[in-house]
């Protein structure tokens, strides 16, 4: 183990060892199954910062013949100082023989110096059959900590705690499925408390994970900005021969436009999922119910985006901003008429154009016939709908552990409504102006960076919701 803090996650089969490893290692490739014996060999999860290993988690198979193993050891027991030697002899004697295969596999990292993280299920009653396992672990002489992982709904934590405290100095309750980020960091700090020389590397690891989480928000803001720029500037076109009737081409082109928008949104989702290390979710994306009611369920638009009244207000604010610039240009001689007219025009335009996404239109091209073009959409609510959905997806993802293998459900019923409503009025106005420039065909690539900067606090707010107090 070469001095690197190593922690072997051990316990009875099917008590959530792999779930704990999956959550702590942010790795959704860990196999988690209801059948016992899914983990047959140890698997290491080194936590590295710039290539330097800070600590290693080892997922192990569960005890299968703990009483028999303990009986073998007791037969050879002489005194407590030789317990560790007997445990080593047990592994040396039985490794490769087929007997005690799981016990040899799980004891090997422990006897090589790993700290013990003993996992039990706090939702089932305590049973004396666990005592053989705990006794064997005590014989190894390694620093240890017990984790009560309540897998089900029933609460037997108190009984477990009473039993575990007789064997372990530190006993923690840790729900691998729902543990928020700061709870995971707390647990890592507790690992550091097992041995004095493990404290510093674990503290370093916690600090690196915290920084990484903060950087993830920057990455998400950038990803959302790129997605919004692409979606708000997307257009599809088809050249038509001179004199051709555009009507048969109109509906297919509109469908193509919508499909491209959907594809871009899906790609954005995948990117945000990969920022949080949810790679397996990607493979199951077709099953994700978010896509059942997708971007074009217009009846849901006011849920995800701005409500009609807010749209008018935001449009009016944008119009007033432009009108105000005119007023300022004439030194106030216009008696704020520019602002008033701008606000009225902006509000009316927002109301009028909020009903439809984009319609295919025909353009005459000099010397080149005609072109049927769909997009970019001028609908003022569209960017808010896209943003609202993306923020909700991000919030759900940020609060999700890697042990959670259920469907990522993003339907309206469980959505916290009004993600975009929570954005402060001033920032909403700035975003609105950014969206308007993009929808107006402004090709300035600097807009993306501007949008990302505006979105960052919004993303931070969405990530704070599941309980990240940083």
């Amino acid at each position, binding site marked *: 183990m070469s001095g690197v803090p190593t922690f072997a996650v051990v316990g*009875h*089969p099917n008590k959530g060892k792999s779930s704990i490893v999956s959550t*702590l*290692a*942010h*790795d959704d*490739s*860990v*196999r988690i*199954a*209801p*059948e*016992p*014996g899914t983990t*047959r*060999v140890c*698997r*290491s*999860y*080194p*936590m*590295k*910062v*710039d*290539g330097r290993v800070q600590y290693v988690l080892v997922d192990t198979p569960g*005890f*299968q*013949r*703990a009483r*028999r193993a303990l009986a073998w050891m007791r037969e050879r027991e002489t005194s407590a100082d030789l317990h560790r030697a007997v445990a080593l002899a047990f592994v040396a004697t039985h490794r490769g023989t087929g007997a005690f295969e*799981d016990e040899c596999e799980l004891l090997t990292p422990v006897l090589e110096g790993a700290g013990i993280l003993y996992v039990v299920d706090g939702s*089932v*009653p305590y*049973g*004396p*059959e666990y005592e053989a396992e705990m006794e064997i672990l005590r014989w190894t002489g390694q620093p240890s900590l017990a984790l009560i992982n309540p897998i089900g709904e*029933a609460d037997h934590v108190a009984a477990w705690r009473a039993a575990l405290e007789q064997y372990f100095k530190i006993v923690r309750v840790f729900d691998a499925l729902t543990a928020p980020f700061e709870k995971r960091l707390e647990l890592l700090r507790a690992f550091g408390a097992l041995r004095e020389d493990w404290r510093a590397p674990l503290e370093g690891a916690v600090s*690196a*994970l915290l*920084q*990484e989480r903060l*950087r993830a928000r*920057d*990455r998400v803001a*950038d990803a959302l900005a*790129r997605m919004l*720029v692409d979606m708000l500037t997307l257009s599809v076109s088809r050249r038509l021969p001179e004199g051709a009737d555009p009507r048969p081409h109109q509906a297919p082109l509109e469908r193509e436009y919508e499909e491209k928008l959907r594809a871009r949104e899906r790609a954005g989702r995948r990117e945000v999922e*990969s920022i949080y*290390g949810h790679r397996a979710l990607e493979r199951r994306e077709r099953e994700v119910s978010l896509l059942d009611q997708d971007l074009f369920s217009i009846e849901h638009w006011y849920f995800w985006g701005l409500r009609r009244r807010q749209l008018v207000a935001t449009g009016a604010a944008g119009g007033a901003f432009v009108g105000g610039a005119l007023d300022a240009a004439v030194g106030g001689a216009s008696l704020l008429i520019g602002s008033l007219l701008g606000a009225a025009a902006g509000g009316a335009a927002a109301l009028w154009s909020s009903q439809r996404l984009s319609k295919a239109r025909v353009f005459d*091209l*000099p*010397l080149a016939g005609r072109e049927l073009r769909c997009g970019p959409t001028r609908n003022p609510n569209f960017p808010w709908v896209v943003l609202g959905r993306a923020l909700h997806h991000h919030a759900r993802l940020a609060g999700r552990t890697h042990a959670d293998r259920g469907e990522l459900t993003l339907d309206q019923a469980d959505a916290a409504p009004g993600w975009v409503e929570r954005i402060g009025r001033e920032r909403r106005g700035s975003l609105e102006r950014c969206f308007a420039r993009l929808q107006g*065909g*402004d*090709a*300035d*690539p*600097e807009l993306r*960076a501007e949008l*990302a900067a505006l979105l960052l606090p919004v993303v931070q707010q969405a990530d704070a919701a599941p309980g990240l107090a940083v």
Partner: protein
Amino acid sequence: MSGPGFARLVDLALQLEADAERPAAELRRRDRGIGLELAQAGVPAREQVAAWLACVRPAAATSAGARAATALRAAAGLLAVFGVVLGTGTATALFQYDGTHPVNVVRVLGVFVGLQFLLLAGTALLCLPERWRSRLPGLDAVKDVLALASPGRLIGLLRRILPGSQREAMARFAGVAGRHRRLYGDVEKWIWLSASQVFGVSFHASALAVALALIAFTDLAFGWSTTLQADPRALQRMTRALSLPWSALWPDAVPSAALIESTQYFRGATGAGHDPVHSAPWWRFVAACMVCYGVMPRAALLALARWRLAAAVRRAFRQQPALFALRDRLESRCVETTAEQAEPPPAARAAPTRPALAAAPAGTRWALVSWSGVPASAAEALRRAGWLATAQLRAGEGALETDAAAIAALARTPRDEGVAVLVKAWEPPVLELMDFLRELREVLGEGRVVAVVPLALDAAGQASAPGEASLRTWRRALEQSGDPWLVLHAPELPR
């Protein structure tokens, strides 16, 4: 036409696009390693990306960017040759004098001044930034027409005669530029405009050279003739206006009223206009026009286009959407938490045993064994549910001798009795239990029913029927045992 900046931009664009296909973890490791090296070498932040590119694409001399830049230079060279050929031909045609008709100054001005004004005005419109152009109604149509007439378009055609490697590099960049029009639109525009100006400069310079050669080495007679406006005073006003830029510096190059009046000619007529000596002063004006309205504006536009191209290349380099992620990978610590090796495939499951019994026969009497601390109340619950229990033993807890004693006791029970092993439904079937069941079978012999009875506990701690998921787990484990007389028995208890 294109310097190292363009080559670097192409390399960056292609590298970022290739990176988009690679695993994120691999990129993070690679780029963080480079980032640390660059930080150690003290590379300033503004040069970081270029230095990174040099690291990931060490063979810069043969890179796709270098080949694309060479291809552009070669295409520009071919355009220059095309311009020289066309300029020479045009000048030879316009300055042709065989002694019958003089060189028509109006025609020369039409080609080298009038047409140039129109093209320069169009080019100036194209040079406007996109956001201004989009606000001028009808400008898109003008742009499309000019684009059709632009010699820069020939780059696409000339590309086809370039060597394969250069052609491929250009095609790859064109593909990237096509997919990211917002980013590379300006670069493409200024490449076109630069190429057009290369053509323009070579066209005008070669035309001027041919004109001067013909003036120097042949006897040309100049005159003017037009059906539109035959009044010499109008031509004089025009020539005076055109001469304004050089009239103070070179007064001899401003045609006098007398010269204009005396050199007007009409087709089929003969007169002074045919006299090379008399009409010679026209050449200065013609040459000055060709320099001032042909060569100089094109040279200036070429300089402007190259300057703007360099700026557009720098901007596109700076504004790559993937640069944020790249800088992030270079500057942020690379934190890895996942397993290095892939999860091994699940262990192969043995073929399930074909059970000899679907369930224990009705009316069976049972010897009960409470495995691993199943509470005694569980056996009571079974009795209340109508089970005929003859004995109650314990196993799976405490010393191993308990198990041996239970097996010995069970061996003594009548052969028509079944053995029911009560287990905790919420616990998984561990190998220790399977060992016990195997040893029990060895003692009991074939044909005797052994039932495993998983029991759950209700909120009051009383035995209850287990859930389907638990039963499924237990059933699967028993199917793997190879014992056809081993059955799973789910008691009818309240849930």
